[in-house]
């Protein structure tokens, strides 16, 4: 790769409450993020995968960016284990309760702060907000072309060819870099962590200078963002009311009978006795 500037890739990722953990609803209906187990937003894995694929095929420097409270550094470490190079943690109390408008504003400022970038990748959406708005909003703010629902991509020089998922088929598009891409979860199968990458992360996490070189903590002041446009004050979205619909869980029952008829009878019996009649069950 000598003489050729490495592609600079930014991947926006998010730490979300673990969907398999039960804890996490406050009495007022909001998500209790402190109590819930945390994980990397599963949709972001596809964006990271694409970044690493590009890195391995044409060479690139991959920087993952996340916005969240200090524990969100965990997801950055996870991306290193997958093969990412640098991590930026944007953490600031004034960012609390940001909606998609405020988030996209803050994140686009991070892109400015990082300087030139060639490809920005994001997941399709998150499993906590499920809006799928932040990626496209960042592209608009940066004045970049955007390819949403991207399944496959290839790069030749400064040209990127992508396949988008659209209803009933797919669409091929070609664009010049720089570009923002939201990666669909129908993209190629995910790679597993490599032993060498995991070993390297364990090694540099033990050396503070190395660690600081790889992970940077930034605040609103560092990236030069206007605090009045972030957080609750910068978010026009108003949450009207949240309520708990019920809890997922309960026990699994396996029906075992001499005949299928008997099993079905048992199932009907059980549905009746569990408080919900079948009619109500179907109409619900």
């Amino acid at each position, binding site marked *: 790769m000598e003489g050729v500037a490495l592609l600079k890739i930014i991947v926006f990722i998010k730490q979300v409450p673990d969907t398999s953990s039960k804890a996490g609803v406050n009495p007022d209906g909001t998500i209790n993020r402190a109590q819930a187990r945390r994980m990397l937003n599963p949709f972001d894995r596809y964006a990271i995968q694409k970044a690493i694929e590009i890195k391995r095929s044409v060479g690139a420097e991959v920087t993952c960016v996340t916005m969240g409270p200090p524990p969100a550094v965990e997801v950055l470490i996870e991306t290193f284990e997958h093969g990412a190079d640098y991590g930026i943690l944007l953490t600031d109390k004034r960012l609390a309760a940001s909606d998609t408008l405020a988030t996209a504003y803050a994140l686009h400022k991070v892109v400015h702060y990082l300087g030139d970038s060639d490809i920005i990748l994001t997941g399709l959406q998150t499993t906590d907000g499920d809006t799928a708005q932040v990626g496209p909003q960042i592209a608009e703010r940066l004045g970049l072309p955007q390819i949403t629902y991207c399944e496959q991509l290839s790069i030749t020089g400064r040209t990127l060819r992508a396949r988008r998922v659209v209803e009933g088929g797919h669409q091929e598009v070609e664009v010049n870099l720089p570009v923002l891409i939201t990666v669909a979860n129908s993209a190629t199968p995910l790679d*597993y962590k490599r*032993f*060498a990458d*995991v*070993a390297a992360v*364990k090694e540099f996490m033990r050396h503070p200078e190395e660690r600081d070189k790889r992970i940077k903590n930034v605040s609103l002041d560092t990236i030069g963002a206007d605090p009045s446009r972030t957080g609750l004050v910068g978010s026009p979205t108003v949450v009207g009311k949240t309520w708990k619909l019920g809890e997922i869980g309960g026990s699994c029952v*396996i029906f075992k009978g001499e005949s299928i008829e008997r099993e079905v009878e048992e199932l009907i019996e059980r549905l009746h006795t569990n408080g919900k009649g079948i009619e109500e069950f179907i109409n619900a």
Partner: protein
Amino acid sequence: MKRIEYDILFVGGGISSLSAAHRLVDLARQNNLSLRIAILEKGKDFGSHVLSGAVSNPRSIKKLFPNYETTGFPIEGKCTTSYMTILGKKKAWDMPSFLSPPEMNKLGYLILSLSNVVRWMTSNLTEKVKDTPSIVVDLYNGFPANSIIYNGNSVAGVRVDSTGINEGDNCYARVTIFGDKGFISRDIITKFNLAQTSQKWAVGVKEVWETEKDLSGKVWHTIGYPLLEGSFGGGFIYGLKDKKVAIGMIVGLDSENPALHPPQILQAFKKHPWVQEMIKGGKLLKYGASIIPEGGHYSLPKEFAVDGAIIIGDALGVLDLKGFSGVDKAMESGITAGEIIFEALQKKDFSTGTLGQFKQKLMDGWVGKELKSSRYYRYAFHKNKKLFSNYLPNFLKGLDNYSLFIGFINTFLSNPIDTISSVINLKRMMSGKTDIGPVKWQEDRTYSRADYKVEAMAEVKGFSKNTIYSTADLVFYAFTHYHHGNRHIDEFNADVCRQCIQKYHTYHNEVPCVGDCTAEVHEVRLKDNKYFHFMNLENCVQCCTCEIVCPEKNLKVNPAEHGSGPDFFGL
């Protein structure tokens, strides 16, 4: 790419490896020695592939964690009553203590969930080295060792992951410790020709139930029903805290019966009115299976170490069948290995010169002494097959239909001279007082007979249908998870499988891999009028039974990759 190198590399994060790591870290801390340790574990988390009974003598735990009772060491209970019970089809007879072997008395022992113990020991180890930067412990869960890297005749490390092609997928160490139950270390045994006599394996299947009754602290070991066709084995029931109970069955894999169906033997066990009484109204929480090295003394390898490597725990086969104790001995083997390795680190000698002393030290200690005294224990039953195929069923017939006394008379009258000589013979061999020299037996796979007449399993009546599961349903409770495209069991030659199927089908028997599988992995399918061997790999609980019983040595179970496999937490 930089070589990934440690001082000490553990293959397998089980109880023996963690004991060794703890001992080593303790010694390094006391002596201000800097140390870099890596532990590879194939399970998603440390403990997720660990399954044992388990009732254990606390001696090794005390040695490693003197304050284990107050420091959060996870215990399911302390044994308050311990019975050896003989089961007929209807009755259960708790043997009086003067008749049952003293080693089976578990009073005061700890009842454990070994998966939880392993999880605790792992986090405790991380905690221990947190403030000692000179000691590094890197935990690699989800990374199995795939093969051994040799440097001439010494072990240099392992290749991690079968997909590994780069230098970066290799892990090197000055000493590699194999606590892997033989998954990889069998390669060393073969390469250096270390086998004495082959290992005798048994398979254990276990369920954990939530029950209405509180049985905590109660321990039963059973023989008899449902194993009435001559296979060596027995059942166990351990009462855990929080109204849970562990129910299991252990069957020797050297059975003539090619279709043991271990999970279904366990179901039959649960149908017994005596067990039904304990679990009625309860709920199945988890199911799992694991193999157990029962060979003992003469199945140990000739050497326990080669240049650059040491073998410990179940990979070595330190379980003592007398008293069925494996956990304390596996831990002790780890502790002893830890001490030897520490010596090697100080001397900077990683050849058999220092590592080879491990065998001597372990065999001179209580582990070696106990293994030696019970060296004929398994052989006694191996030689006296009638015990389990004739005498016991005869006795039980008497017990069920009349009384205990009639049971004894019944057994005696069936063949007076034989019975007496058998009993005397058995007693003598079990005590190990008379020496008959080294014993030999064939590999387990050689005993299954294609023409075996499978008798219908003894059936009892009056059980609750809700407590009994088909094997397919049981697998659901092992919570196995594999990734798309997973191929972890090798079948070397499909024609060999076809011939094997034909051979067993001639006598209307199932092939051993299908008949002995604990998780409905193996299956014979019909396609284009031909039978062929098929595997439902997504069900596999990584027990390796199929590899052991395959008559043609045509199967090989590789460690699960990418953190796949079962989830045994709580078992």
